């Protein structure tokens, strides 16, 4: 078991936002978290990533407890968080963005650059442009390329296709599919067509708790089974 979350409870001040969450991810899986806005998907991802401290419960990654550990330590253990809103370091160049990501790992920068170009050849021309100038889709690809540096075992990706045009979503979907072989992922997504195409399993979240788990491939492929929960 790659990741085990056991009876996780999280509070913002005195308000409880996550209730008794338990889930498991096996190595090689791509799991999607779906649910309405405010269901707690981002909160759950942030807690796993180390940005929030749970009030109770545990999170184990590759056999080690990571709940309550600071995000930089969790990241170095092989669990990477890719934020919402396509936040890149806009004042730095694309290459600089990769350089920063490579810095704490043992991976050479040139390898990271080659990987990014391999994912999306157009990036080669953009290497020395400031990240500020990238389009939404390019930013997301940069973020993914950044997150893959150091070859982590698990990626937590928050709404990668939000606000993107259909063609670009298709490109992102291809990138994610190509990553499936080497890396496990938990993806928060509202785009059900994408979910049905990519997911090995789905967790539906509602009001801060896991409402349902769907593991039957037939059900996953037909969004009508779960679209009501959004």
């Amino acid at each position, binding site marked *: 078991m790659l990741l085990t979350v056991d009876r996780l409870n999280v509070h913002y001040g005195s308000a409880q936002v996550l209730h008794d969450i338990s889930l498991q991810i096996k190595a090689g899986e791509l799991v999607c978290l779906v649910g309405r806005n405010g269901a707690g998907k981002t909160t759950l991802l942030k807690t796993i990533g180390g*940005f929030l401290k749970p009030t109770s419960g545990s999170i184990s990654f590759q056999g080690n407890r990571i709940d309550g550990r600071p995000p930089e330590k969790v990241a170095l253990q092989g669990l*990477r968080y890719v934020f919402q809103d396509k936040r890149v370091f806009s004042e730095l160049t694309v290459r600089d963005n990769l350089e920063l990501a490579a810095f704490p790992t043992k991976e050479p920068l040139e390898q990271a650059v080659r990987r990014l170009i391999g994912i999306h050849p157009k990036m080669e021309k953009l290497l020395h442009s400031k990240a500020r100038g990238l389009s939404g889709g390019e930013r997301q690809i940069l973020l993914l390329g950044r997150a893959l540096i150091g070859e982590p075992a698990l990626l937590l990706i928050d709404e990668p296709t939000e606000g993107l045009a259909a063609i670009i979503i298709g490109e992102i979907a291809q990138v994610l599919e190509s990553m499936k072989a080497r890396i496990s992922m938990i993806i928060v997504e509202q785009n059900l067509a994408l979910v049905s195409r990519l997911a090995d399993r789905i967790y539906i979240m509602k009001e801060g708790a896991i409402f349902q788990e769907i593991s039957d491939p037939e059900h996953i492929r037909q969004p009508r089974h779960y679209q009501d929960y959004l």
Partner: protein
Amino acid sequence: MLQTIFHGLTIGGILYIISIGLSLTFGAMGIVNFAHGLIYTLGGYILYTALTTLGLNFWVGGVLAVLTAIPLSYLIERVVIRRLYGESIDYAIIATYAVLLIGVDAIKWIWGARPLPVSDPIGRSIGFGGLDLPLYRVIILGICLLTFLGLSLFFKKTIIGKIVVAGLQDREAVRSLGININKYFAIIFVLGSALGALGGVLYTPITSLHPYMGFHVLILCFAVVIVGGLGNLRGTAVAAFALGLVMAFTGRYWGPAAEAMVYVVMALVLIFRPIEV
């Protein structure tokens, strides 16, 4: 008129050197660091001791003062600043002000409360286009320019510089890459403090040393940082020179109002562009 401009630029230059550290700490950690004024003051006082007790030359004394600031500011960072991350801004203000208080009293204890003079290390002027420019001030401008270039290179070309630029924009994203951003902000804190001490060294021959000079200059620097934008390196430079000119021109026509005018400008800027901290 040109003389006033030159004067203003010199003041602006020193304000820039002192304010950079403040701007970075404010922008990076959201901490208003009153203790910065202490390091600035100590820079001047250690220079004084170097000149009088140790009999060293001004420039050597200055370097010594800046070097002493490094372990001191590191101590402050470890004991006080680090505990203020994520805390409400009010406690940061109170705690760093407390450090300033303690330090100023220590200075009064060691060096006494009376103002101490430090003389212009060069004392000559050079003529330039009909102006009489004190060579010392020309050198200050030179140091200023070097600092600006050095910092620009640092933030554009070195990995630490890039980490800080990224961290100023998005702390959490930097952490998500596995980088302990606090460690690098601490480095920046020490760097900024060292520059603060340098500012203290450079400014003392122009005014004189007194224990409260840190408090005094601090508010001017807050004005620079606020007008220039928190953590905005270029903005700080522009604001420093602009406010230096404000001070010089006000000083020429209505002497004592020079500093008050800076606060008026700061108040105006805050009114029309309030900061969110």
